[in-house]
């Protein structure tokens, strides 16, 4: 960590030297921009066991200063208390960046993606309390050469540290220190070849014991982009070496790997994408699977999930939690617009674990062994914890002012229990979302969203089949006001909130084009929320919320 701090300090010194270039420039171009978000909530969190008072206050301000080739930024955070996740107060982000033509150097906080994210994809998602931001330094350089400058190379070097806290356990923090590089070359306009290397030291806590690890990741990728055809393939290999401790009495060095590929074809009015994933970063026996396992996929590895992302509420209600340690699957997505008024979207996906296991011990003990198979494709058998989905949607513009959208979705998600297959978590849903939108007198809009979902959940003690219905009606006046009301009803006797209906009213007022206040009062059903394949449970809430978003450019 000391070396790392030295590197950050050195980077700052380099940037200060670079700043001399400012004086050689005839004109000082200065710009400041800022954005601010304030959130307040006061109400009760509902659960079957009881209601708890829930209050939160969060303030987040980002300020950026641009001076010629320099760019600096600061984030200030305050909470009293935070809605969920780890409380962060004070200056939580600061950086300075120098950018000259195709050269960029930054010292301080940063996010980064290498290739498809198999090696490195750090990001922030506040709704699920996820943040894999690094503190260190990053250098990027692009260069073009050749007769028509058609050969392009790009390289990125990063070094930094990260303290990672998951919303599921805010008292537990994993610490990482990374050094990594990424390089890509496009020898021709249509082809790009690239590679990445990452080394990290990590401290992974399990209870009171910390496991020291060192991990190395290599990644190679290739892409072809010719007219309507695009092909991408990435492969990464990871080795994690642990130091002996009370949990692992001997050093271990398991290997894992992951592959992702996509093929798409497009022509006017039509587009199809086929995605394939094969993530084996930590394929272990069922009794060894743990979020605290030191050999798991690292939190800053975040590969494509190959699962459709929805914006409507009920379609997002029972999401699949992607396991980057052990998952294989594919997805096909098609867009087709036979006329300018009509767009069709179809999606199919299938995902599962790689292997089934059996208990090979003949005594009362348990020793799982896997049943080998060609695990290149997912399986639909329950033993493989499959997830599959079919989705179809048609969007039709009756005229410029009237739009309708109707969809249908069928999903099955199985979390298999090897100890007691009868206790496996099986969820099946059939969902129909409908949207009708009408604009009148040029500035007024009415939008109706109605969703119906039939669900089956094997873990319900009583009735396993139930339905939910959600209706939202919004009325807006451009450019400043949206008023909406949402009502949701279910006949589920075992909803975690202990309720059967939820009603909420919302008011959004834009006092300028980039400054908005949102007020809501009522009850929300809660449930799993996902971002980039990572899902976290959000409690049901009943009360008042205020969000103020400002942007000063």
């Amino acid at each position, binding site marked *: 960590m000391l070396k790392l701090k030295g590197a950050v300090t050195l980077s700052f010194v380099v940037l200060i030297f670079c700043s001399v270039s400012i004086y050689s420039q005839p004109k000082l171009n*200065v*710009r*400041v*921009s*800022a*954005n*601010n978000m304030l959130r307040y909530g006061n109400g009760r969190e509902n659960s079957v066991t009881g209601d708890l008072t829930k209050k939160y206050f969060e303030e987040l*301000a*980002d*300020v950026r200063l*641009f001076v*010629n*080739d320099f*760019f600096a930024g600061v984030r200030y955070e*305050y909470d009293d208390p935070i809605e969920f996740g780890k409380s962060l107060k004070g200056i939580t982000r600061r950086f300075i*960046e120098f*950018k000259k033509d195709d050269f960029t150097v930054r010292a301080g906080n940063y996010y*980064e*993606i290498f290739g*498809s*994210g198999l090696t490195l*994809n750090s990001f922030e998602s506040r709704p699920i309390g996820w943040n894999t931001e690094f503190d260190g330094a990053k250098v990027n350089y*692009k260069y*073009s050469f050749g007769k028509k400058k058609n050969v392009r190379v790009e390289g990125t070097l990063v070094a930094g540290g990260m303290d990672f806290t998951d919303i599921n356990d805010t008292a537990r923090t994993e610490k990482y220190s990374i050094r990594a590089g990424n390089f890509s070359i496009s020898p021709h306009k249509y082809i790009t070849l690239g590679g990445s290397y990452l080394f990290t030291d990590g401290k992974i806590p399990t209870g009171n014991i910390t496991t020291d690890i060192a991990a190395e990741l290599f990644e190679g990728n290739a892409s072809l*982009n010719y007219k*309507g055809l695009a092909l991408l393939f990435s492969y990464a290999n990871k080795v994690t070496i642990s130091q002996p401790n009370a949990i692992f009495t001997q050093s271990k060095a398991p290997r894992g790997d992951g592959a992702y590929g*996509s093929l*798409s074809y*497009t022509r*006017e*009015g*039509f*587009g199809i*994408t086929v995605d394939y994933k094969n993530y084996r970063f930590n394929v272990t026996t069922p009794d060894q699977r743990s979020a605290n396992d030191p050999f798991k996929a690292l939190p800053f590895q975040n590969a*494509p999930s190959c699962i459709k*992302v*929805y*914006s409507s509420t009920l379609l997002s209600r029972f999401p699949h939690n992607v396991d980057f340690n052990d998952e294989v699957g594919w997805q096909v997505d098609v*867009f087709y*617009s036979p006329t300018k008024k009509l767009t069709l979207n179809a999606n199919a996906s299938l995902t599962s674990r790689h292997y089934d296991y059996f208990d090979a011990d003949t005594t009362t003990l348990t020793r799982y062994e896997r049943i080998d198979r060609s695990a290149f494709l997912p399986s639909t058998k329950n033993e493989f914890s499959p997830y599959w989905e079919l989705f179809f949607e048609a969007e039709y513009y009756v005229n410029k002012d009237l739009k309708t959208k109707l969809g249908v979705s069928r999903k099955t998600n199985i979390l298999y229990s090897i100890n007691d297959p009868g206790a496996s978590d099986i969820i099946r849903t059939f969902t129909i979302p409908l949207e009708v939108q009408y604009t009148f007198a*040029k*500035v*007024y*809009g009415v*939008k109706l969203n109605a969703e119906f979902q039939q669900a089956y959940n094997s873990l319900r003690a009583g009735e396993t089949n139930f339905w939910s219905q959600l209706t939202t009606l919004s009325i*807006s*006046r*451009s*450019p*400043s*006001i949206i008023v909406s009301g949402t009502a949701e009803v279910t006949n589920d006797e075992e909803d975690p909130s202990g309720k059967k209906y939820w009603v909420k009213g919302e008011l959004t007022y834009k006092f300028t*084009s*980039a400054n*908005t206040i949102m007020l809501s009062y009522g009850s929300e059903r809660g449930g799993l929320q996902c971002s*980039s*394949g990572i899902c976290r449970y959000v409690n049901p809430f009943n009360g008042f919320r205020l969000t103020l*978003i400002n*942007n*000063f*450019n």
Partner: protein
Amino acid sequence: MKRIIVFTMFVLMISFTGKNFAQGYDFDLNDLDGNSVKLSELLKKGPVLVQFWATWCVPCKEEMKALNELWGKYKDSGFVFVAVSIDDQKSLSKVKPYIESKSYKFPVLFDTDKNTFSNFGGQDPPFSVFLDRNGSIFKTYSGYIQGDDGKLDSEIKEALKIGKN
């Protein structure tokens, strides 16, 4: 709270110190065919409206439809419209199929790591920044409400007048 007030005051005061283009604002992003596109190059053609969107964002797609019509109306007058996708790795492969299926012809760029988006202060899409010919930010838009295209139409006309010789 005191610090926030001081911070905000600081921001507002300094916002008036300069209106010129700083290189830190510039971006260099790849388009759907892998070509590099720089904001500074686009600004040579005229005022540039940069819309940040994602394939999973419904209001973004509604706004994009409206902006496509406005682009068709004003592109010959120098109005430049670019749609910057902030789709991450999970939905990135669907960007080109979506755009082609809609037969959109404006430039579409990739900002996978969302660095450009956050440099402009974007928090959630749809988020758009309208820069005049001088590279100054003429307008910032957060969110999209049905019927916003009428206001955008008049603001494009206004932006086209700025800095015109």
